[in-house]
């Protein structure tokens, strides 16, 4: 389970002064559910997810991941999380198998369990044809599969996806969305950020709309439709974020 409690993150920029990338964000996601964090570029999605993955430390507030505090127990949090984003690249000079094994070992798996787990994942994701190929020689699709294998190797109960389909072709993006669904079906807690409305509509059980670091609203797709009297998610998004963006630009 993930529970964010008043998360805030401030950065200091020489030109712009203090920037509130995340401003008092709270939400909760239960196991077997997908929470979609929807927002435009620069809304604060990546920063929020990086805090949940303990890559960044919050300036204020905290979050619990599987009962572990992101500030107090970052290593325990990371051991329970699989983090995947377009920024999480692969080591070019390692083979697909070496890379997955490396992360398995870092997650404390013993060699017997690791071998079993790697064989299982490579068969499940149909990766045996390129397991000994170096990552810099893999196609985009193969790389995505290897990244998925990396996040799965320690079988974490929580999965965090930060715009995982950004810049991918339809078939590779489909591999990712199928994988996200599988995670939910296996009872994992899934949090997923995107700015692609169709992905949110298809995948998410709960949607949070974030803008300028603030979580503006959240609910199921049905609840949002009812609340804003719109059928189309894009229209709902524009109705919520549009006035703020116009004000900001004015």
């Amino acid at each position, binding site marked *: 389970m993930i529970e964010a409690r008043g998360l805030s993150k401030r*950065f200091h920029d020489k030109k712009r002064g203090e920037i509130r990338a995340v401003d008092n964000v709270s939400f909760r996601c239960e196991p077997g559910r997908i929470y979609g964090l929807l927002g435009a570029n620069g809304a604060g999605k990546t920063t929020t997810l*990086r805090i949940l*993955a303990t*890559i*960044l*430390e919050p300036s204020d507030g905290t979050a619990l991941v599987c009962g572990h505090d992101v500030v107090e127990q970052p*290593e*325990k949090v*990371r*051991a329970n*999380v699989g*983090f995947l*984003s377009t*920024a*999480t*690249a*692969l*080591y*070019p*000079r*390692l083979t697909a198998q*070496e890379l997955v094994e*490396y*992360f398995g*070992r*870092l*997650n*404390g798996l013993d060699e017997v369990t690791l071998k079993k787990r790697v064989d299982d994942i490579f068969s499940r994701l149909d990766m045996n044809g390129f397991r000994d190929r170096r990552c810099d020689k893999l196609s985009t699709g193969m790389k995505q599969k290897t990244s998925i294998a*990396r996040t799965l190797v320690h079988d974490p109960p929580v999965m965090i996806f930060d715009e995982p389909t950004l810049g991918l072709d339809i078939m590779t993006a489909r591999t990712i969305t199928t994988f996200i669904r599988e995670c939910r079906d296996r009872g994992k807690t899934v949090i997923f950020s995107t700015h692609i409305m169709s992905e949110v509509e298809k995948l998410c059980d709960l949607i949070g709309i974030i803008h300028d670091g603030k979580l503006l609203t959240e609910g199921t797709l049905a609840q949002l439709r009812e609340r804003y009297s719109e059928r189309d998610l894009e229209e709902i998004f524009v109705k919520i974020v549009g006035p703020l963006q116009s004000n900001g630009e004015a």
Partner: protein
Amino acid sequence: MNLNAVRIVYRKEFTEWVRDRRTLISTVLVPLFLFPLMMVGFSALAVVMVGKAEKETPKVMILGGEDSPQLIANIKKLDSLEIVPYAENWKDEISNKDIRAAVEIPKGFEKSLETGQSETVKIYFYDGEMKSSFGANRLEKFLKDYRDTVVKDRLAAKNLPASVLSPFSIKQENVAPPEKVSGATFGSFIGYTVIILCMTGAMYPAIDLTAGEKERGTMETILSSPISRMDLVLGKFLLVFSASLATAVLSVISMGTSFAILGHSNLMNSSSGQTLALNLGLLSVVSVFVMALPLAFLFSAVLMTIALFAKSYKEAQSYLTPMTFLIVIPAVASVMPGVELTPKLALIPVLNTSLVCKEIISGTYHWNSIALIFASTCVYAAAALFLAFKTFQRESVLFRS
């Protein structure tokens, strides 16, 4: 600290390192081939070049001397010089290397000799040009011999022995063992080279494991794993340190081999005709290596810390280039004549190691200085590693955009 996690990171970094051609070149190939190339190659080349220049008969021009036929005739008789006819632009001819030197005989030179007046014979040449120096030297030798003959004749005319001009002679004689002489000659050079190679060996892995990782987008991947930042830094640091040490070891081996080859050849004959035998004993080699250890440690930590600030490989290289100068300057200072190890200099990193290596190679072991240098460099190295740990904790550095 989780040593198993450190080991896992180290093993992975090592696998990637041996598969990277750039780092292998700087860590293995450069130290392995630089010494033989510099020592054997350049020495052989120098011998060939000097031999070739010596075989050439320099073209020389005589300026004036029409009223000194005896002298002119004697110069023209020399097989070691080719006399060319006088030309107005003789200075240009020397500068353009058409002729190698010119000798100016003053007016009434032979008459002045007869009357006992002193005259000055000038030799013009191209300073710094080897073949021109050879031509000028041959002219000077001939003139000195000629002067000696004149002096002898004058003494004989007055019934005085030649020894009247040199009531006693002076001779310098070396009492230091040959290996110490050679050590003093090459010691500073060896220390300097080992230090520079320690740094270059660490430089590329340090960039690759920090800025390179950021550029490739793998930093976020590794930071999302459960490993602590301290274990991650330590694993990476140990690899950079290993690369630096590997460079130091290979350079010492290569250095020893190069000197052994030179020792068996005639390439290291000094001007006095003595062979500069450099016997790098096991103790010297081990001592140089031990002294290079904390320095390699220091370089690894400092280079990693600086490279981490960069967003890309290229940016890191531009940060580390001034760093290279910071290391080269004290290393070069140690090669300067007269710079010797003092308690104050023993606290200046790089310079201290370079100076102590110079002493070690010449067979001098000042144990107090050695202990002070080793300890002070260890302290600097520990501080640098602490700084690397702290830098890895800074989000503004890790996610600089």
